[in-house]
């Protein structure tokens, strides 16, 4: 399969702190990937570099063969890189449906000559509205479309956020700790959702607990102090001595 996204020597410094340290990473289209690591290991910073939230200090990111190292985040979204946030990020002042429609207001590609027609174009184009509704059905929120977002539970907001990024019809889905702050029941639901999406989308999931990703992903990478210390199928990662050391310490075992 074709390589969809790759990074070479990706590094990000915050002052003297090296949050991401020379990461070489590569993923193929259509598969589901996981990134785990203890708190502060650089997972989210790595995502921020892939999605364009931060500019790297050095190194390169390529998406679909194109260099996107210094491309702005909104351009990357247009190319098909969509992400969710560790803290759910939806618009509380809008209804569930409006949250989805918001993403379809945009032109397919941002380019300057098209800025003006934006004021005059029809807001509700059937095709993109169908996409929105399908996305809402996929996450199981279709029945709550007209509810104000404020009345949703945290878990439902997380689902809404996933629906929003699905409506963008991305080629790559970056999920930043999709299970954080959820109940076991909600976690189960989202795990099923991710499973149903795998194959349709290329996904990268960040998580700090190893157990949740074992059944979900085809390849698991472990970040520690900004570097990837191991990347393999989940079962092999579990057996890796260095990973065991980082996660559980020598011998001792919890979580």
């Amino acid at each position, binding site marked *: 399969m074709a390589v969809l996204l790759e990074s070479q020597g990706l590094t990000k410094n915050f002052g003297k702190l090296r949050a991401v340290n020379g990461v070489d990473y590569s993923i193929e289209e259509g598969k589901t990937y996981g990134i785990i690591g203890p708190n502060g290991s650089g997972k989210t910073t790595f995502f921020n570099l892939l999605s364009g939230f931060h500019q790297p200090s050095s190194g390169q990111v390529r998406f679909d063969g194109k260099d996107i190292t210094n491309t702005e985040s*909104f351009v990357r979204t247009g190319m098909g890189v969509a992400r969710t946030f560790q803290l759910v*990020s939806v*618009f509380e*002042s*809008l209804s569930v*449906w409006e949250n989805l429609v*918001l993403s379809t*207001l945009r032109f397919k590609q*941002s380019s300057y000559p098209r*800025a003006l027609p934006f004021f005059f174009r029809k807001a509700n184009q059937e095709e993109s509205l169908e996409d929105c509704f399908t996305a809402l059905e996929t996450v199981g929120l279709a029945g709550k479309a007209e509810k104000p977002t404020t009345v949703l539970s945290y878990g439902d907001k997380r689902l809404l956020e996933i629906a929003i990024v699905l409506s963008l019809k991305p080629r790559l889905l970056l999920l930043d700790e999709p299970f954080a702050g959820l109940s076991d029941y909600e976690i189960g639901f989202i795990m099923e959702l991710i499973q149903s999406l795998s194959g349709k989308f290329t996904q990268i999931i960040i998580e700090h607990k190893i157990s949740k990703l074992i059944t979900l992903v085809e390849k698991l990478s472990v970040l520690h102090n900004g570097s990837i210390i191991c990347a393999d199928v989940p079962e092999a990662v579990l057996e890796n001595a260095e990973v065991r050391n980082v996660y559980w310490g020598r011998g001792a075992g919890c979580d």
Partner: protein
Amino acid sequence: MNTLKYPSLRSRPGRVMLETGIVLLGFLVLLAITGFKFYWITDFMIFCILVLSFDLLYGYLGHLSFGHMLYYGTGAYLAASWLVYFNNDPLLALLFAVIVTSLIAAVTGWVAVQTKAAAFALLTMAFNELGSFIVHTPLSKYTRGDDGLIASPGKVFGLLRFGKDTDAFIIVLIILLLVFLVLRILTRSPFGVLIRSVKENETRIQFLGYDTQRYKWITFIVSAAIAALAGGLFVMVQGFVSPRAISTLSNIEIIFAILIGGAGSLYGALIGGVLFMLVKNYLPPVISAAEGLAGFALPQWEMWLGIILLIIVFSFRKGVFGFAVEKAGLLRQSIKSRKGA
């Protein structure tokens, strides 16, 4: 197939016209209850246009500017200059003022929207101080410095004279309604939803694939253009412009007005503008009358305005209009639940 009806983000034309009619009616009623002081209400309406333009930037986009008077003042000076140095057509003067001010705002706005919050406020204020200085000193040959420019506009369409109170009232009322109409359509359009969402969570909007900087920039220019229109109208009605029109101090009055009325709503801006002007115009004579009765000096109107603002900040966080909307919502809910029971 799904049964959901997609709610539209586009306003129905009938609704927009109805709301514009309500605004028209509101100002006519205001005119009647203040005893047909056309001159006053014209002043009120010009201020309301300025507050509306500010609301687009502050209430909708969430950017608090301390330098909005730059665009009002530039509009005023440009309109006056057109009348003095070119010809006396008031509409051409207004058009000239709006276009050139928009170009200036395109430059200052491009820099300003790179920042937010306190940096944005200070940067816009710095631009305003700069503009204020340029008008006052290097350009004093044309602007006559402290003395100001006297301008006499000709007739509008050969019919209405700004010099006549009732004519000026009609022209300004029509322009106010047009501004309201344009902003009403703009703020409820996809563009409007987008800028309100930028206010709530700009990062999220960027990750939906939008170049937020560009939308902020456009909003800034539109806001400045409307402020310039208000400034131009001020010159037409007063026949005069002085450096006061471009002073950063007056910016506080706009912020007061928008806080009183309620930011983020066109009605809030209109109500705030009117209430502020009522306080500003009615309080001084009331205070001097009270002083006459009491026999000693009382604090001036600005202090009472300060007290009103304190009450607003502590009791009506969303302004008078926001408060009314909230109460109406609660009332509707309680009626609904009573019917249900």
